[in-house]
């Protein structure tokens, strides 16, 4: 069962993260922490019209949270707000599925490797940490990637 959690894709992203490091310029930044374990992430979003021109991040944390940030970068970098919204929604739904959803690789790419994480309730927060920080950073950059943000904007 533990192999489903620590899939090679996740370990690869953890050991060799994509797009890591905070970059300029950026339109919005958010810093999120997981108070129970001390994991931290800073996420920056640079928007160019309706496109996510750059997504950059830095943080400390476990393999799940750090690999999740790397996958997020791969999936959302250069995408339109609408596309990012779809991916974001699909990833959050997968994490909240308790392992009951078959993820769509077309939408989630390497993110499908996180299906196993959904079976470990204590680790779902780790996987979602970068995605929640991204949502806030995107909103601050003027890009809405979730229904709740759009409603309150």
């Amino acid at each position: 069962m533990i192999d489903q959690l620590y899939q090679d894709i996740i370990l690869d992203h953890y050991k060799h993260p994509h797009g890591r490091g905070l970059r300029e310029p950026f339109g919005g930044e958010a810093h999120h922490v997981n108070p129970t374990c001390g994991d931290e992430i800073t996420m920056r979003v640079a928007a160019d019209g309706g496109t996510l021109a750059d997504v950059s991040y830095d943080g400390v944390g476990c393999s799940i949270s750090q690999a999740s940030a790397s996958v997020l970068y791969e999936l959302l970098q250069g995408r339109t707000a609408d596309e990012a919204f779809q991916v974001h929604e699909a990833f959050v739904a997968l994490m909240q599925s308790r392992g009951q959803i078959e993820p769509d690789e077309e939408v989630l790419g390497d993110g499908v490797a996180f299906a196993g994480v959904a079976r470990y309730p204590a680790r779902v927060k780790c996987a979602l940490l970068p995605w929640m920080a991204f949502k806030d950073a995107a909103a601050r950059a003027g890009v809405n990637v979730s229904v709740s943000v759009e409603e309150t904007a």
Partner: protein
Amino acid sequence: MTFDVARVRADFPILDRKINGHPLVYLDSANTSQKPRQVLDAMREHQERHNGNVSRSVHTLGTESTTAYEDARAKVAAFIGAPSVDEIVFTKNSTEAINLVAYASAQLLSLGPGDEIVVSEMEHHSNLVPWQLLCQRTGATLRWFGVTDEGRLDESTLDDLVNERTKLVSIVHMSNILGTINDPARIVARAHEVGALVLLDCSQSVPHLPVSVVGLGADFIAFTGHKMLGPTGIGVLWGRSELLHAMPPFLAGGSTIETVTMAGTTFAPPPARFEGGTPPITQAIGLGAAVDYLTALGMENVHRHEQEITAYALKALADVPGVRIFGPATPEGRGGTVSFEVDGVHPHDVGQILDDLGVEVRVGHHCARPVCARFGVPAMTRASFYLYTTTDEIDALARGLEQVRKVFA
């Protein structure tokens, strides 16, 4: 009496469990201890045969409950060598006990700007945050002892830190993260020399070693039941009688009063003054049974067993490549709580892989974030031992760490 760990283990039903197909290896007793059948039976027996509210009923069940509740108080008093039973205040946990003293201190010590409260960098958040809040409320200043690279309290600044402005010093007796056992003698002497009070957070010491409040010389100690074989929901504040008498109630209500009119209230003497509302009766009785269990084994024997396990564990962990231990590297002046890191692997991942092998450890900042910051890590992995821990379990931990290294190689 010789200490027989196999006989002790037979009293703990949960130790028969399997986790993910492996025998349970419970190495998280500093978080919460497991409970022996004797404690579980005492609580069930009370609920099934004697349940009534305490201190307010003339009927038989109420009287039996009151007697059992007060007997538990007497057992706890004897366990820590308290001069008087009335110096034992039952609380919900250590956190409430410390908050009680912090709340009452504003009035008791007439705190204001210029006064100082002293803690240490080694504290659990529950012995740090209440004092931060007290200082915010009163304008007093919070100061603290540092921690040395070896994980000891840095007492080199004692005479400067504890001075004529100091009103209260609140220090951990045994660190929940580094395992360090502090000898409070010099700090207590210095504090009393300048007229300051001393509270010791004994949450990790009372369960594991013989503790006498007279020997410690402190003015208050706080500890909790669930870390010493008792249930959750019951903690203890011990305070010197004259201080408790001078303190205002913290959570006021039924039981805390002497006379109430619509215009005002006079309050009962301690400990009732501090036990507002229906107390955790069954839990207090469970704690009393836990004290009986520990007393029958002898705290010297419990402590000696844990010292042996700790020495074995320190060596076993040091032998695993890439493992760095935080805190004292030898068993002298430390208890059976060992925190460490595995090079290149986050504690969350260490704990997850160990759990897959049935080994239950704590990961994270252990409610002592300043300690993690002091040692430059966001989190630590912690293995903590108790009277039921065996060397076989330490071997299982060491094997598990080899597996961790393999997965993250």
